[in-house]
């Protein structure tokens, strides 16, 4: 099987409200940046894949408009996932492994500001038993947080620590949206939106876009930059039957940790797609990460572009490996209520 490397990654500054900026205006700057980083043009790209959600825009086939940000003439091989762009990356990896391409361009974009995101997310739940009751994204997460607190898996103090560490780390990411660390008093006295979660526990509503280029060993060799390899990648999903899932654990995350042989890797850091504070201590425990640095980029709590934030975990891990002495990073992407679907990626710096 072909080895696959990340060649470039770029992220727009994350903003709370991109106002009338359209898909093309969000995507084009990051696509140009990854082309500049590699010296590639669209002609050097074998496969292009994007991740986005038309429900965020409130318009059908909004993702097609996004294609105007790249050169599509002469015709290109192109695909789209109605998912986080981490899964567009996954499709691109399969495409390269199958021998259909040597390089791939991936981008994800999302504009959550025009709508009411916690309720837009309701529409991805079961249409018979769940969505008619309008459980919002925050309330579904709160059901899991409450259960974990009740079982003694984590406490509000753990959640506050995860929040302050994330937001303090956000200074490492010039594109981060939130950089003001709240005081413990402010955090503990905040009204709950859905108990036990207050607004502090939820990632901010964010607009933005990110792009990445991946390629084979031959493609990365030409660039003369540190080789960051995708050494392991797997994803899995839990049942759509929400009430049948055991929310006190995550079969998906534990299983993925085994699949990418996490135990045999000496990790330097992890970037987790954690949209709620409780998810950080929760995943730390599930994967037995000990005192490992988590979300050195600030993570989604410092800026959470829907449909790009999972790709950002992978992209930020790539940047960290490229610009530091670190050798092994773990990246995580997720989708669905209460971490229903997850992807784990082991990134490794290869020394020649």
């Amino acid at each position, binding site marked *: 099987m072909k080895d696959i490397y990340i060649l470039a990654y770029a992220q727009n500054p994350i903003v709370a409200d991109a106002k*009338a900026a359209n898909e093309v205006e969000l995507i084009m700057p990051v696509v140009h940046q990854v082309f500049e980083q590699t010296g590639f043009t669209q002609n050097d790209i074998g496969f292009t894949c994007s991740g986005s959600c038309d429900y965020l825009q409130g318009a059908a086939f909004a993702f097609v408009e996004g294609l105007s940000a790249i050169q599509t003439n002469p015709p290109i091989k192109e695909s789209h996932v109605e998912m986080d762009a981490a899964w567009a990356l996954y499709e691109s990896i399969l495409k390269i492994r199958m021998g259909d391409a040597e390089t791939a361009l991936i981008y994800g974009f999302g504009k959550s500001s025009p709508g009411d995101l916690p309720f837009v997310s309701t529409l991805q739940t079961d249409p018979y038993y769940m969505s008619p009751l309008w459980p919002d994204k925050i309330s579904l997460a709160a059901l899991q947080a409450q259960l974990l607190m009740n079982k003694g898996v984590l406490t509000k103090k753990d959640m506050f620590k995860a929040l302050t560490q994330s937001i303090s780390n956000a200074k490492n990411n010039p594109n981060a949206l939130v950089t003001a660390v709240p005081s413990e008093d402010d955090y503990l006295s905040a009204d709950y939106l859905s108990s036990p979660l207050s607004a502090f526990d939820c990632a901010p509503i964010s607009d933005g876009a990110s792009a990445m280029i991946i390629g084979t060993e031959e493609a990365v060799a030409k660039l003369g930059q540190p080789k960051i390899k995708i050494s392991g990648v797997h994803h899995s999903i839990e049942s759509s039957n*929400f009430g049948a899932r055991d929310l006190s654990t995550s079969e998906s995350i534990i299983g993925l940790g085994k699949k990418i042989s996490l135990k045999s890797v000496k990790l330097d850091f992890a970037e987790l797609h954690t949209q709620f504070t409780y998810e950080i201590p929760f995943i730390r425990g599930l994967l037995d990460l000990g005192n490992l640095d988590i979300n050195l980029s600030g993570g989604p709590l410092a800026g959470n572009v829907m449909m790009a934030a999972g790709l950002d975990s992978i992209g930020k891990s790539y940047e960290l490996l490229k610009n530091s002495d670190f050798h092994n990073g773990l990246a995580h992407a997720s989708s669905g209520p209460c971490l229903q679907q997850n992807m784990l990626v082991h990134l490794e710096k290869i020394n020649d």
Partner: protein
Amino acid sequence: MTKSSDKELLRASFKLEYPYERSPGPVIGKFFDELSNEVLVGTKNSKGEVFVPAAEFDPKDSEHLSEFVEVKNEGVVQSYTWIEKPRAHHLIQESFAFALICMNGTNSAMLHMIANCKEDELEIGKRVKVVWNQEKTSTIRDIKYFEIIDD
């Protein structure tokens, strides 16, 4: 050149919905039909485990489920979240809880709402019972909400 990000966003009213008619099929359809008769049914797998609301297949091994069993209108709170100030789309506009409720004699939980109580009366393990909606629509909303059973 002016960028669009400098302009105000044009706004239009928008109804957040899936504008589709759905057919519930033989399993979910029977569950809804029974709800409109104020009866709760679940489906049973070959190990004797019962799923309420009725599941079409076993989420663990995908066994096709077609055997129905009636269950009592009472259950136990597995988890809950209290919403002091309901937000835009919530069906109950006074303080209420979303909860995962395991109906007695079943092996899965049902997402629904709990109302008519105070936050400090609610805890994991609390016993609750169905309150029916007077107007039936053969949907999950035929259960209006759950309320705490006074011991």
